[in-house]
């Protein structure tokens, strides 16, 4: 693997911003889609920037993910390709969701330059908003965990995806935007394994190479250090994921356990709104089809003894699960959005890992790979035949 090395001046964001400014200058792209800290309050929002000077306020690696990047990109390109070239700086799970949405015609990638970045995980939105400054410090510590020499604390003390990040991030094994992470960005920015004060630029395809070329950035340096560190961390995560899912399995096994898990649900459907893959114009569970006459409920109450209201809570989650499971990128946005702190992301990505495994499909890995349910194979799943 070959790439370029950029020097870090003040912080990791700095060389990235400089790179983007240069890209705008050289007309490699005409606009940049990037998270920016909102002027009032502490949160971050996706901003489409054409004016170079505004890039100063951008943060390519914010500590939280209030809106999944693929959703932002979808709202820009849903009606077709953009006439100008846009560079979108996103986390790998956001890139994967964007690629997945492109297969569903909800994102058009034609004039989009996807830049992914090594993801240290994000903090739960609630934790961050409670004590933003403290959380920001914590996040920066995690970030510096990538280059322990720069950390104020002792080496190995802080790991990426540690317990202060969201549960989904703690077990994420696709946190890099190259083939290693099954991610198809055009250019990946590596932060892992930089002993000095550097970041890595790794082109994933010709598009990435040509832009580096245009910017006179030579991409012939070895990326072995980055790769080694990424692989190490990946192994750790895989192990952790296995442990977590092994525990989770018993928590959600069977209808009674599922009812328990989702018993706190208040039917706000925030999980669905935050999900980048849930893109239906109208959710079935809000359609007329789910509105039944009172007699129906009385009859159901009679046959079951009692009926909980709002009704069909579990059906909603299972319905959503069947709908988006094969495309779920495990980003954790749903869990962040849940006001009742239900482990919805963990459950959904656990199921997703299994359903995707059946089709040997990894969502967002490759824009050319067809969606599993769109291809017909005569010879498969004989176990479901009777």
């Amino acid at each position, binding site marked *: 693997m070959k790439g370029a090395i950029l020097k870090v001046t003040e912080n990791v964001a700095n060389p990235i911003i400089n790179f983007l400014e240069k890209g705008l200058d050289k007309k490699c792209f005409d606009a940049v889609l990037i998270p920016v800290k909102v002027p009032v309050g502490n949160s971050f929002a996706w901003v489409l920037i054409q004016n170079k000077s505004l890039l100063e306020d951008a943060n390519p690696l914010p500590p939280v993910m209030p809106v999944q990047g693929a959703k932002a990109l979808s709202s820009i390109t849903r009606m077709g390709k953009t006439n100008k070239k846009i560079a979108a700086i996103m986390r790998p799970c956001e890139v994967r969701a964007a690629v997945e949405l492109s297969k*569903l015609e909800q994102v058009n990638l034609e004039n989009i330059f996807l830049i992914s970045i090594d993801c240290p995980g994000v903090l739960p939105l609630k934790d961050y908003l409670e004590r933003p400054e403290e959380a920001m410090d914590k996040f920066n510590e995690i970030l510096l965990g990538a280059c322990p020499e720069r950390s104020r604390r002792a080496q190995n003390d802080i790991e990426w995806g540690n317990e202060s990040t969201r549960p989904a991030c703690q077990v994420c094994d696709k946190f890099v935007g190259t083939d290693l992470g099954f991610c198809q960005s055009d250019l990946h920015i590596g932060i892992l394994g930089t002993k000095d004060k550097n970041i890595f630029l790794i082109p994933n395809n010709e598009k990435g190479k040509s832009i580096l070329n245009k910017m006179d950035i030579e991409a012939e340096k070895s990326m072995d250090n980055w790769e080694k560190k990424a692989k190490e961390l990946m192994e750790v995560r895989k192990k952790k994921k296995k442990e977590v899912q092994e525990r989770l399995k018993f928590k959600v096994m069977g209808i009674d356990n599922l009812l328990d898990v989702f018993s706190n649900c208040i039917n706000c459907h925030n999980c669905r709104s935050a999900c980048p893959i849930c*893109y239906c*114009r*109208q959710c079935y569970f809000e359609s*007329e089809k789910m509105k*039944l006459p009172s007699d129906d409920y009385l009859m159901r109450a009679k046959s079951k003894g009692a009926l909980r209201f709002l009704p069909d809570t579990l059906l909603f989650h299972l319905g959503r699960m069947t709908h988006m499971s094969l495309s779920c990128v495990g980003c954790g946005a749903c869990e962040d959005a849940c006001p009742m702190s239900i482990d919805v992301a963990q459950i959904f990505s656990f199921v997703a890992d299994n359903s995707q495994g059946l089709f040997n499909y990894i969502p967002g890995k490759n824009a050319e790979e067809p969606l599993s349910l769109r291809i017909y194979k005569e010879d498969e799943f004989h176990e479901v035949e009777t």
Partner: protein
Amino acid sequence: MVEKIGVYVCECGPNIADNVDIDKVMETISSLPGVEVVERHKLLCSQNGKKFLKESIQEHGLTRIVVAACSPKQHEVTFMKVCEEAGINPYLFQLTNIREQCAWIITDKELATERAIRYIRAALRRVPFHRDLAKKEIETNPDVLVIGGGIAGMEASLLLAGGDRKIYLIEKTDVLGGKVKELDKLLPRMESSLNIISQKIQEVEQSEDIKVYTKSEVEEVLGFLGNFVVKVKIGENKELELRVGAIVVATGFSMFDLKQLPRYGYGQYDNVYTALEFEKMNIDGKILLKDGKPPKSIGIIHCVGREERGYCSGVCCMYCLKFANYIKSKLPDADVSEFYQELSIPGKAHQKFYEDTKAKGVNFIRYDEVEVMDKGIKYKTESGEEKTSSVDMVVLAPAIEPSGDTGKLAEMLRVSQGDGGFFQEEHPKLAPVSTSMEGIFIAGCTQGPKNIPESIVQAQAVAGRILSSLIPGKKLELEVKTSEISEALCIGCQTCLEVCTYGAIYFDEMKRVSVVNEVLCRGCGNCVGSCPSGAASVKHFTTTQLHQEVVEALR
């Protein structure tokens, strides 16, 4: 509006009455909301029963009908006709199956009765959500496109060309006649192949209704039975658009590529020929070795590529016997050996042909394994003995394969390929010349290896199918239960376009939604099943209708 629903329970002679307590069913159902009338009848599908049903519908001024009887496969159409005669839209009726799915399979009468009530309740819950659906008809084009100018394609063209329709015959090569033209004689009568095929070619060329395009290939096919639009490429750069009502595929076959099996020595040793090369030699009049001398001993090897292809081509045994006859008549002293694995000689005239051939002194050697060497054939017998036979000429009978462009054509026509890569017929026994695409037919070796009379039979069958279904001036009734896609719900992901086997959905770029072409749609429901947004639904099987029915059935 409150519906007035009539429920009719059929006894079906003893079939239902014996195992379902119909009085109890009627008593329970009559108290349900919306039920205007409940009646029973001994045999609703009888003349008497249909009359009774019609009069009862009219008498009570019903707006919805539920018939509890047999499988919809059996009598749905029967009762829909009665509804029509009674002046009610036939789609406002529901046939609920209390025979196959109830009386016949549940032995306990009480349980069967309870189940019958449950099914009728489900139907009662469904029918208020039924909608009037109207029949639609479209004009059809009686003209036919025939792809392939071999014996099957020509035969079909000749039968179809009857003055009131035009036949377009597309041939890839520059001449008509196909593979039959490359044969010397036809068994069992050993008549000249050329005479027969030339006569057919002449008839085709003289027909005013058949337009032949040689050096032509089909480029694109759109549409459906009655209305196909076909793009044809003629020669290098001419293009033609044809409008036809049916398409006949008669693209014939290719021979198994012998280069794949070096053990037969083809291309490696002199005097190893394929069956068609041997035919050519006979057409030219002389069986000669490369050095110009007549061969003294000839080995004919059957079953070449049979194992690799996984099927018996069925025709090789007979033509190999024919080859022995070619040789015996030209070179009476030559030694002829037939190396076979299995002999396949069915047919009323073939046994005699075999015996006559054998009587001419032809050797029949059954082999387990065979290998061609320079001037010899090494083989292993059934008992495992290794033997060598010295021959100075070898003729190979390679397996029959689908012709090279079958895959491309299959994709274009949206017809699948079945065993061996041949075109898949609609049903191997009951519908061997039609395909899953209405209006597209297959004849001859494009459907599978076969001999000339079998190809002719298929060509004639295809002609019969087309003549009886595509009648000039007659309109075609379209599927009523087509799919529709809600503009309000469609998010434009275009999944439906990929799963539609009829090419019946297109994408409206302006509105960014998928749209169903009702002329092409057959209402299979693929799009409904795959639509992630629930925007697609099939008329008469809407989500609401099914949901209501299932909810009630499960209550």
